[in-house]
């Protein structure tokens, strides 16, 4: 007979909550930095000079074709031999940012590519500079078009951050490990963690879907309003 004891895990709820908060914090920072990096790379790949374009492409391909855990280990364990010693939190944020940046670059580029030519021509005929055209005419509706894909990617990065516990960043899976090493309720601890991650994923998705049109790309009405 299988006996499950969830109470033994839930009694440590302050640790679980602290871990969840840390996970959300890491995700928030990585989201802001990663999306900005993604936009910069998308811009470099669509408008940049040839060397810059090649560099951005190499970065995107390299990140998209290697596992997050290897990127994280390379940054945390590998870079100190170059004299760059990072705390586990900094390494986690850098890894998550670089990871999200590469995927966001592809996603945002798809949105930029679908900009109607007429809008570019209209903006240029108003004597806007290239930077103004990009920031005011091209980018906001492009973000609007690809927002659902971008939100999915942000959720994937949040879930991926569970690996950061392996380098002792004190996020949810780190505390899950701590709890199961104390009470040996391994299955229950991971089950509770899974439920918490699921709730966080659903909430984050809803929050971003709600916030996007209001604050991020909604200031400039997309078209025809």
């Amino acid at each position, binding site marked *: 007979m*299988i006996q499950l004891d969830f109470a033994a895990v839930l009694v440590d709820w302050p640790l679980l909550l602290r871990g969840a908060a840390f996970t959300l914090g890491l995700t928030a920072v990585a989201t802001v930095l990663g999306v900005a990096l993604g936009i910069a790379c998308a811009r470099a790949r669509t408008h940049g000079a040839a060397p810059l374009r090649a560099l951005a492409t190499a970065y995107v*391909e*390299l990140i*998209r*074709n*290697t*596992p*997050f*855990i*290897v*990127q994280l*280990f*390379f940054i945390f*364990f*590998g*870079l*100190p*031999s*170059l004299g760059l010693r990072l705390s586990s939190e900094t390494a986690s944020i850098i890894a998550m940012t670089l990871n999200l940046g590469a995927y966001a670059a592809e996603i945002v580029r798809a949105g930029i590519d679908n900009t109607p030519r007429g809008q570019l021509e209209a903006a240029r005929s108003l004597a806007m500079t290239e930077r103004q055209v990009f920031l005011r005419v091209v980018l906001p509706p492009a973000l609007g078009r690809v927002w659902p894909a971008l939100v999915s990617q942000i*959720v994937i990065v949040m*879930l*991926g*951050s*569970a*690996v950061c516990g*392996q380098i002792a960043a004190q996020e949810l*899976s780190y505390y*899950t490990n701590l709890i199961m090493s104390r009470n040996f309720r*391994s*299955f229950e601890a*991971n*089950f509770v*963690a*899974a439920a918490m*991650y*699921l709730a966080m*994923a*659903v909430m984050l998705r809803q929050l971003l879907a709600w916030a996007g049109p209001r604050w991020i790309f909604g200031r400039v009405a997309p078209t025809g309003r």
Partner: protein
Amino acid sequence: MVEFTVWQILWNLLLAARWTVALSLIAFAGGGIVGLALLAARLRRWPGVAMAVATYVQVFQGTPLLIQLFLAYFGLGLFGINVSAWVAASVALTLYASAYLTEIWRGCVDAIPRGQWEAADSLALSFGEKLRHVVAPQALRIAVAPTVGFLVQVIKGTALASIIGFIELTKTGTMITNATFRPFTVYACVALMYFALCWPISAVSKRLERKMRRDR
């Protein structure tokens, strides 16, 4: 401390990459079979099945693969099954892949115009015949590119099996690092291996996608 030349590191990683490939193939094939079964159940329109499959997909897409691996590892143990890391990783990655694949393929089936289903109905085709002669040929064409693309996700996902003690590429990298104290070189080599595995597949997937868009 053990002295390893870069070639020895690469050679050992290459040997370990076989297990990454093996686990990826098991997960991809197993996930394909389970995913197909779930898709068929959905298309049957049995009551409650759509909800159940949607929940299944939501759970696997909404929780970290790492936690899924732990749950498989410790969960199978609860039933008194003595699980090796092999079994746990295969089970977890199969279920993970099945959730994604069934969702990808559902999208492909949904992309087929309703008229095709109705035409098949009006020809009095059975459920199996409808799938075989009308739906599958059209859905498969759309499905190839994203399915190949997902294979890359699976290969990268197997890296997490290292954490439950499955000795594949990443785990071997960690072991060599512990012996040589050269994390920079070793993890760069590990990343290179994954890149060599994944990049050609990504490129094929991208080309298929472009070709499909042109053909339409």
